């Protein structure tokens, strides 16, 4: 099994190279130059040119890419053009905000999505099923910025019980978590319902009933493990997306997380900062997917066998 893990970790390297190549190219071929952004619109052109020269921005593109890779191998990701600080300082400062948000969202998603999905499947065609499935469809289709604005309207303006923006206390996190969780829980619910409906029609579920197992036991012991396998993959991907892509939520609730850092870095042409965030998130995503796959093997013995067989085949 550990050989499988090492293989997967090594696979991250080509993925990162690909990500670096794509993002670096986009950042370097799009119009605008960092000198102008840093010095402002009123600065003389000579000063801008001089700064671009010192930043190495005037070198040919392949040279720039090569230099970046060379420095990266030495773990030197450069300083942010904007703050003049090493790029990872900013990331380390902001990561906890995004991480807390993602963890909270994840917990809510699981707590809402899975039990309701199971319930909807077990009581297929009941009123409960119809209401939850319809609501889930509605929420999954709703844009999250719209939901966020509605929440601010309700909880901050009318009820005045939650702060509309910032990260000062736990209460600041409630609305962002809820907004995100509602969307992810909706899709998790629909997925759980589908896989559960399939699972409870399997022969082994009938076998379990035939042993005299109660309905609750049949569902929570026999059907759910099988039904959750695809749900776990999707939750893992959602978690990766939450860590990287909470841009909208962070913007609406003015949270200084990684998502808003990405926006800031791109709009200020802060190439080292953009690259660092991208690399950080890509690595994180790969790691999460690895954990998900290992979790899979833990739940499904058939997958475990396949990993072990993969080792034997080598």
């Amino acid at each position, binding site marked *: 099994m550990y050989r499988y893990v090492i293989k997967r970790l090594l696979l991250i390297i080509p993925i990162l190279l690909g990500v670096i190549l794509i993002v670096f190219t986009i950042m370097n071929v799009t119009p605008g130059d960092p000198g102008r952004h840093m010095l402002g619109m009123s600065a003389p052109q000579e000063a801008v040119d001089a700064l671009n020269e010192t930043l190495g921005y005037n070198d040919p593109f392949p040279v720039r890419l090569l230099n970046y890779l060379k420095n990266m191998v030495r773990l030197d990701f450069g300083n942010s053009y904007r703050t003049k600080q090493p790029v990872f300082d900013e990331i380390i400062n902001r990561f906890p905000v995004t991480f807390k948000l993602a963890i909270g969202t994840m917990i809510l998603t699981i707590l809402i999505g899975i039990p309701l999905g199971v319930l909807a499947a077990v009581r297929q065609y009941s009123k409960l099923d119809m209401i939850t499935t319809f609501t889930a469809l509605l929420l999954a289709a709703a844009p999250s910025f719209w939901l966020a604005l509605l929440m601010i309207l309700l909880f901050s303006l009318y009820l005045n019980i939650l702060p509309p923006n910032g990260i000062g206390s736990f209460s600041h996190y409630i609305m962002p978590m809820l907004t995100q969780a509602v969307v992810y829980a909706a899709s998790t619910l629909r997925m759980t319902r589908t896989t559960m409906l399939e699972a409870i029609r399997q022969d082994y579920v009938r076998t*379990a009933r*035939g042993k*005299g197992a109660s309905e609750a036991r049949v569902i929570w012991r026999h059907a759910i493990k099988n039904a959750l396998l695809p749900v776990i993959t999707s939750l893992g991907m959602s978690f990766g997306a939450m860590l990287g892509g909470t841009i909208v939520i962070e913007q609406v609730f003015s949270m200084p997380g990684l998502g808003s850092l990405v926006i800031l870095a791109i709009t200020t042409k802060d190439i080292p900062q953009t690259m660092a965030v991208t690399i950080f998130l890509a690595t994180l995503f790969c790691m999460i997917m690895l954990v998900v796959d290992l979790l899979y093997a833990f739940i499904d013995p058939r997958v475990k066998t396949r990993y072990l067989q993969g080792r034997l085949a080598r």
Partner: protein
Amino acid sequence: MSDKFFSIENLSVEYIADDEVVKAVNGITLSMKRGETLGLVGETGAGKTTSALAVMRLLPPRTGRVVSGSITVGDIDILSLSEPEMRKLRGELVAMIYQDPMTSLNPVITVGDQILEVLELHKRQSKAAMKARVAELLELVGISAERADEYPHQFSGGMRQRVVIAMALACEPELLIADEPTTALDVTIQAQVLQMIRELKTKLNTSMLLITHDLGVVAHTCDNVAIMYAGEIVEQGTVADIFNGKRHHPYTNGLFGSIPRLNKQSKRLNPIEGMLPDPTNLPEGCNFSPRCPSCMEICKIKSPRFVQSGTHRIACHLYSSEGGANA
């Protein structure tokens, strides 16, 4: 009729699919004594498995339902029980060996735990005692007890079928329903599994309802036989009645005729022409009449009644004129 242990009286089962009503079982009556084996024979779709599931009360909820009839095991009226009462009997009094060993076991639970579960549900014993019993059961069906911690995918089809059998036998049920226990297995394993079932049955004095479409299996294993066609029983009797009797239902003749023989020269197989009738739209009169080689006018109008001679009963108009008096 006094020492009947298991009986089905006039059982009818329907499935409701969209707006159609599928008449899967139409008034079958069966009975057997303690320790006996009754073979239920018929082609795919004849309603054998549906009858078995009705006995277990495991018909798919919402779509399947028992329309009429009664099922008695010992002195318990199965159909009148509440669901919790029925749950106590499943696996304990009545157990079932399922048709497809590849899908009947849960892929994410170890084989040992799946057998253990039956004991957990019905026997108040210590964990250690139950574990020991699981080991004993596995050895009983010819699987090394060390393999209890393995998962179904690590077993071959024949081994999985043995696990299903071990599971069914765990609580020593008084009635065992074996739904084509050997169909998914290759011939060498079939013989082993059948032999095993037979030995276990004798040891535990279990009654068995054996569902199969394999007449060879019936001849080897059963005491009595019921031939089922389109949800009805068309012929019933002892193994000797069915295999050696002179008079048969045309469908039974067709079944026997369709077995290829090595000692007779024949270039072609002899299938029964046609197909099972559409269960949403059964024909008037005898269900077999559209395929019957000796179909008469009356067959298309009137359902035949049973003609009895000794232990042998046939539902066919061919014999009603001779034996009509005691039908």
